[in-house]
């Protein structure tokens, strides 16, 4: 992408009258004022200083939406052609800012309160108490430790996905059939998967896999032993998400220049040599993208755990998300749960930034 000047040049001869400019500004400030006034009134009503008010904050939301539309419209009214360009990005930016930045600021406030939805007196700021509680909470650290294992499992998924992509890229018949079949697990919802595999196929008495293991002469127990339970969760998650990496790697393989591979064959490289010396290095950028995105998805892992083991046995399979989910579900501890989530967010941001930095340095090209 070029850095200087627009890619698409437009010559504009806007002469915008002062009246039009004033109208645009009046729209923005008027609606903003309306929104702010309503918000202040509602706040005073809730604190009991004004007798009448709205039942919920819904009208303020409407005023906010009105302001957002006024802001978008005013871009064109005030800035003319330039505003039309801004209008491409502005709606998405407003949407994300209002749905992420405000809640995050709010979360920051909640995380330093002792808010429990079950208690009658709302949020009370309690300073660093939540932080201290977190520091002494073995289950949270345990969940973080599990996340490390879960993220490390991505390497195995990567190997399998690469193998499958190579298979699909080979000269085979019925390629489309295999591609659809291999893609199917990605379509299934993790909740359905946790019943299909976790609760029925791995059921100790009647599940087909348990039956198979009993035939082989072992006693099946999938969720009793911490290590095996964690492995089963990893396997189920891998089953759903391997297609995701596989498709990205397959796209990479198909985009490889065929001349290079043919040249390596002419030079007498065996299959393994041409893979190690030619295909794999050329696939590095795609691999990195696939692995990084997969890791980002992995950090959100929760659905399978919530539905299959709910963190058991003894927290061995807990991910941070599932742990916080239970903290809220079982104890309605909004304040503490939010603090845990915020800490997790900070850790993730640090981790992903380091990862990207490391990758870009290693590949010696800007990310």
């Amino acid at each position, binding site marked *: 992408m070029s850095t200087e000047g627009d890619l698409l040049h437009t010559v504009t001869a806007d002469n915008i009258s002062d009246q039009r400019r004033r109208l645009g500004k009046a729209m923005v400030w008027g609606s903003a004022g309306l929104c702010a006034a309503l918000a202040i009134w509602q706040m005073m009503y809730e604190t009991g200083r004004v007798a009448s008010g709205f039942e919920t904050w819904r009208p303020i939301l409407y005023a906010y939406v009105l302001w957002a539309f006024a802001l978008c419209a005013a871009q064109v009214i005030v800035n003319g052609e330039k505003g039309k360009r801004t209008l491409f990005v502005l*709606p998405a*930016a407003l949407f994300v800012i209002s*749905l992420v930045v405000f*809640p995050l600021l709010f979360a920051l406030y909640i995380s330093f309160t002792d808010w429990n939805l079950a208690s009658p007196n709302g949020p009370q700021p309690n300073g660093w108490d939540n932080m201290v509680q977190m520091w002494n909470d073995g289950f949270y650290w345990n969940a973080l430790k599990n996340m490390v294992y879960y993220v490390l499992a991505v390497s195995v998924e990567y190997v399998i996905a690469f193998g499958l992509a190579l298979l699909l890229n080979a000269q085979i018949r019925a390629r489309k059939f295999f591609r659809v079949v291999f893609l199917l697990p990605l379509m*299934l919802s993790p909740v359905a998967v946790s019943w299909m595999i976790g609760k029925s196929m791995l059921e100790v008495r009647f599940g087909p896999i348990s039956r198979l293991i009993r035939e082989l002469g072992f006693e099946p127990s999938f969720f009793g032993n911490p290590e095996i339970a964690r492995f089963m969760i990893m396997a189920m998650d891998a089953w759903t998400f391997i297609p995701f990496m596989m498709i990205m790697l397959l796209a990479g393989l198909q985009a490889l220049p065929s001349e290079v591979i043919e040249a390596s064959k002419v030079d007498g490289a065996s299959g393994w040599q041409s893979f190690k010396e030619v295909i794999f290095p050329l696939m590095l950028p795609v691999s990195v993208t696939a692995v990084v995105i997969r890791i980002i998805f992995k950090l959100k892992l929760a659905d399978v755990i919530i539905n299959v083991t709910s963190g058991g046995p003894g927290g061995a399979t807990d991910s941070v*998300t599932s742990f916080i989910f239970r903290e809220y579900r079982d104890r309605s501890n909004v304040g503490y749960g*939010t603090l845990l989530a915020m800490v997790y967010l900070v850790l993730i941001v640090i981790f992903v930034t380091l990862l990207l930095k490391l990758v870009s340095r290693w590949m010696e090209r800007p990310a």
Partner: protein
Amino acid sequence: MTATQTNAVFKDHAADTRVKTKWWASRVAIYAALITWAIICLFPIFWTITTSFKLAPDVMKGNLIPWWDFTPRWKGWESIGISPRLIGEVSTVREEFLKRFWNSTVIAVSASLLAVILGSLAAYGLSRFNYRFGFMRNSDISFFFLSQMILPPVVLALPFLVLYKSLALLDTRIGLILLYTLMVLPIVIWIMRDQFQGIPVELEEAALVDGLGIWGSFFQIVLPIALPGMVAAFILSLVLCWNEYFFAALLTATNATTLPVMVASQTGSQGINWWSMAALSSAAILPLVIVAIFLEKYIIKGMAAGAVK
């Protein structure tokens, strides 16, 4: 084959036959691996769908193959009110199921649609014009959008719970639609930016010369070309929204619950009622399995975009 070769006029050299056996060996290995993985992918789906037609004894005996091992029955599907016998009658369970199904459909479709609209506009703007919002330039704005992908749902879940409560958006479809749009927006922007960068600017320049405005050329020239990419982004979003569980579990209670929440709530109660759970799971996964079979091309296109630069 060797028998015919011994008395054939044109014989392969010994070295050539060695290559041939090696080639056959690699063929066999490739297909064996392909079929093994295909079974790994298909067996759980096969198991779920067949179990929905089983009765308790069939489950306990571990019967696998319909009509040979066991006779398929509609018992499982009757528990969600869908079977040839019950289809004409009024059934509360079916209404319950269809309500969830309809919720899922409405939420997934509208969230994906909203995300594709917002995301395409933003991606087009970012790939064609230079912006400066304060200190933020184009690459910063792109990074701002894409970085939302890192945001774990837990961070937003609890604040949204409280915010939605005061906005009376808890347990409504609109509340979930907004969140899901936010969740898939970075992915849509990622795919669409790639699409728009692949379209030559000269097309729009020609349109501008011919008298169209920026928005006119976007709608009349660029959109039709980028349509396959938009469909890909839409379908990928649809899959993600349809399967989402975490937000739905936290933010809905009775009115706006989606299918995954219904599936999850059934597992806990009433022991393991195999046939009805299997029927419910099958019904929850079937729409996307059908989507996968018929629109596989678009899903792959969507995921491949951006992976290859």
